[in-house]
């Protein structure tokens, strides 16, 4: 069913001059990092990028430079009047008990494993072993964490060598590899990498043979399965 891929092309270049679309200097990851630095991402996407930063130090410098720029801009703000300043200070000083915060880190450390970065552990609230997986296809399990009008956040567990169903999505899809590796039309992705698929790109990730692949995927609009199996799966399981 490879013709699905070629069929996706005319739609991919919609509204864009060919020269600009084909520019290989264009790395959507850097734009995602910039939006993260600025605080412009949805909660699950913010978690996805924070997890990437924990796993991939080479992205940190760019992000911290941009965070520094925003921080400096804040210092340039015209200060507003803090009317109840003394009461607010008193409220802060009253917050000296550390009981609540001492318990939290331990709970998170329990969930953080070699495969689970801190931000994702906090977001998920459970370890990969505790996740209530549901079989989507033979060799493909998923756990839908969030699914609403703003998009969805899903964990995938793909057996080595297995393919994901064909799908397109209305928004972009961002997939962070937690363990193992997969390939799609755009490239090969290992632990800590983020694969970014734009709207209307019909792609089919394939897990590397051997090791199982665990991914955290966030879309900014509902995902639609498009292959023949995908259509059935969509009808049976993904109906909202």
């Amino acid at each position, binding site marked *: 069913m490879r013709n699905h891929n070629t069929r996706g092309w005319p739609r991919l270049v919609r509204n864009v001059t060919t020269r600009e679309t084909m520019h290989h200097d264009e790395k959507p990851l850097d734009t995602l990092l910039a939006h993260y630095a600025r605080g412009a991402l949805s909660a699950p996407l*913010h978690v996805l990028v924070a997890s990437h930063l924990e796993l991939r130090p080479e992205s940190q410098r*760019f992000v911290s430079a941009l965070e520094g720029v925003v921080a400096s801009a804040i210092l340039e703000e015209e*200060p507003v009047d803090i009317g109840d300043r003394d009461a607010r200070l008193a409220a802060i000083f009253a917050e000296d008990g550390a009981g609540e915060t001492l318990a939290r880190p331990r709970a998170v450390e329990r969930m953080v494993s070699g495969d689970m970065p801190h931000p994702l552990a906090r977001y998920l609230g459970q370890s990969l072993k505790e996740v209530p997986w549901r079989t989507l296809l033979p060799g493909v399990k998923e756990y839908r964490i969030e699914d609403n009008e703003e998009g969805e956040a899903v964990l995938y567990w793909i057996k080595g060598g297995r393919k994901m169903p064909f799908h397109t999505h209305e928004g972009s899809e961002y997939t962070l590899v937690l363990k193992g590796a997969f390939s799609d039309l755009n490239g090969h992705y290992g632990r800590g990498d983020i694969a970014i698929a734009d709207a209307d790109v019909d792609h089919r990730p394939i897990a590397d043979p051997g090791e199982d692949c665990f991914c955290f995927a966030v879309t900014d609009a509902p995902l639609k399965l498009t292959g023949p199996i995908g259509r059935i799966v969509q009808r049976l399981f993904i109906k909202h």
Partner: protein
Amino acid sequence: MLSPGELAGLAKAVAQSRDRDAFARLFDFFAPRLQAYLMRQGADAALAEEITQDALTTLWRKSDLFDPAKSSLSTWLYRIARNRRIDLLRRDRATLTEPDDPVFDLPDDTDIEGDMDAAQRDEAVRVAMNSLPDEQLSLVRLAFFEGLSHSEISEATGLPLGTVKSRIRLAFTRLRRTLESGGVVEIGS
């Protein structure tokens, strides 16, 4: 205006001796500015106050986690406020990142030599931004500083959405490359 060194010194006094006077100075410095920034970004007064209060409470409770060797206090506090804002927009308002997490200790070291202060680092980013072609820079300004979405920029400029997206992507990739290569000076001059 307190210098980055003075701010770090006050944070140290808070962390080591729970110095309330030192904290009050940090509060008086950051709260009015952070709250102004958040309101300019579209938060209403109540939300801006809540985020600011939460961020400064975290500073009071967790100042021992701040490491001046890794980032400036204003960057550290900004990260807390930014993340708290995202938490508070969620239904359960749960905390998604804590300053205990490694992601809070991102090195703030754009310069390879390690002798650049925050002002010089900002200048490096500014120079790198100004080295972008005009058509990219204007879109980056709208996307990054004004916080417009790609569709809003497309509407405002009359450019097709795909062009907006593509130019912004090119710009951020180029910005990152310029900053990481340390080639800011040659390109900018």
